[in-house]
């Protein structure tokens, strides 16, 4: 009994000891960058360079920006351009920078009940889905993916409603699982699709092609941006490390590594680097 208490106390002590604030960078990002394995592949390099530790909080873009808005993270890596611009305009970050991009694709059941496969633009495909009242799964979580999906509905001049439209409020993986189970269409980022397609035998790509070059709809481009939270608005953030992270992320060597990530496994990179050349 006493030993149990001792063990518990030790566990608690370990649990309670705070990490040194100096050597820690808090990165709020989206589930797609973490779940694809990209961060796991490139972050150790940064940690070596800065002799620090990067804590990754992976949520939707909406939540990541809100975390940044509260000053609870030091740097953000998200893909929601309009929201990022607003973030900067509000003064929570001094600037945003392009990092990399990939694209969104429309996947759906192999039978393609809505005949989405014949369309060239996402808004046409969405209109077809609405006309057919075919099942559609939405992330519904204000993530970058969700935002693009909503913009596409708006462009198609359709207000999607249940029962054929399902808003899940979950991440991309869960949403794809749902689509697989329910034989539904969904809009997904290509990286997650490639990583999970082995488990999604009922689904096929109906708009977007096999790689971003084949994607017929330019509005499906998915741009990732990095923002260092501004110390002017949030004095508690680790601005120094955040700045170094941004520089490192945009540097040619890192950009090259990003561009190679996924080739061996998928035949194409999951993310295409496009940081502005300094």
């Amino acid at each position: 009994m006493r030993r149990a208490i001792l063990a518990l106390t030790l566990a608690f002590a370990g649990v309670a000891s705070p990490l040194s604030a100096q050597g820690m960078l808090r990165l709020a990002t989206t589930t797609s960058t973490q779940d694809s394995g990209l961060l796991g592949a490139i972050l150790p390099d940064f940690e070596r360079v800065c002799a620090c530790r990067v804590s990754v909080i992976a949520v939707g873009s909406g939540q990541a920006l809100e975390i940044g808005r509260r000053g609870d993270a030091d740097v953000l890596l998200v893909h929601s351009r309009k929201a990022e611009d607003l973030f900067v305009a509000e003064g929570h970050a001094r600037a945003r920078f392009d990092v990399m991009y990939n694209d969104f694709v429309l996947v759906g059941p192999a039978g393609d009940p809505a005949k989405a496969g014949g369309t060239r633009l996402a808004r046409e495909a969405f209109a077809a889905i609405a006309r057919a009242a075919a099942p559609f799964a939405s992330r519904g979580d204000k993530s970058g993916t969700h935002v693009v999906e909503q913009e596409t509905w708006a462009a198609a001049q359709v207000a999607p409603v249940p029962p054929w439209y399902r808003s899940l409020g979950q991440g991309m993986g869960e949403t794809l699982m749902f689509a697989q189970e329910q034989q539904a269409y969904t809009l997904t980022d290509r990286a997650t699709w490639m990583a999970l397609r082995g488990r999604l035998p009922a689904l096929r790509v109906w708009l977007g092609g096999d790689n971003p070059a084949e994607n017929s709809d330019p509005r499906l481009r998915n741009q990732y941006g990095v923002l260092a939270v501004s110390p002017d608005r949030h004095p508690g953030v680790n601005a120094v490390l955040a700045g170094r992270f941004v520089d490192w992320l945009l540097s040619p060597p890192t950009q090259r590594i990003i561009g190679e990530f996924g080739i061996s496994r998928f035949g194409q990179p999951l993310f295409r680097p496009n940081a502005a050349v300094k």
Partner: protein
Amino acid sequence: MSGLPGPDLLEIVALTLGVSGAALCIATLAGVPLGAVLGLVHFRGQRLVTLALYTGMGLPPVVVGLFTYLALSRSGVLGSLDWLFTPRAMVAAQAVIAFPLVAGLTMSAVAAVEKPVRQQVIALGASRWQAALTVLLEARIGVTAAIVAAFGGIISEVGAVMLVGGNIEGETRVLTTAIVVYTRQGDFAMAMALGLTLIVVTFVANVLLLQLQGRLRDR
């Protein structure tokens, strides 16, 4: 994918036990005395306090997590503590979740035995303090049940620790949030393995708790 099952699993289990164990200790140290007092004493406004506790018992953990997040955020009241996205925030949130459970169930366990036992032991010469302690001892089965229930509740919750901990690999990832990650990635096999681990861990913890109850009984 990041995260090998082997050594990381031990880390995750240790953190799970550390966080929920610490939260349970806090909730017990605060909740049992309060629940005992509420069960023993009759005071004005008792119904209101009881209602508050019962409501607290039914609070969804994710709601507690949200409020804790807002409080611990750097733009929140307690932001200067710098607890957010560390295990301390998780302990805090889970302690808040467990507390009404412990206090409320202790209160009803004590109230159930209070009147007849208290009268009896007063007539046998117990002082007010001794009577209160005896009543508490008589209620010990109900009290340990309260603690066991609270532990089961917090070790299996995911909403609060996800929000205030951030599910940071190597820092704030516990069994439940790890299950979420693997489920999200479609790795159901791994998620199931973690789920079974959680069940085993909970089982062992409950065995220990019940042993403690047995020791008390033999006094």
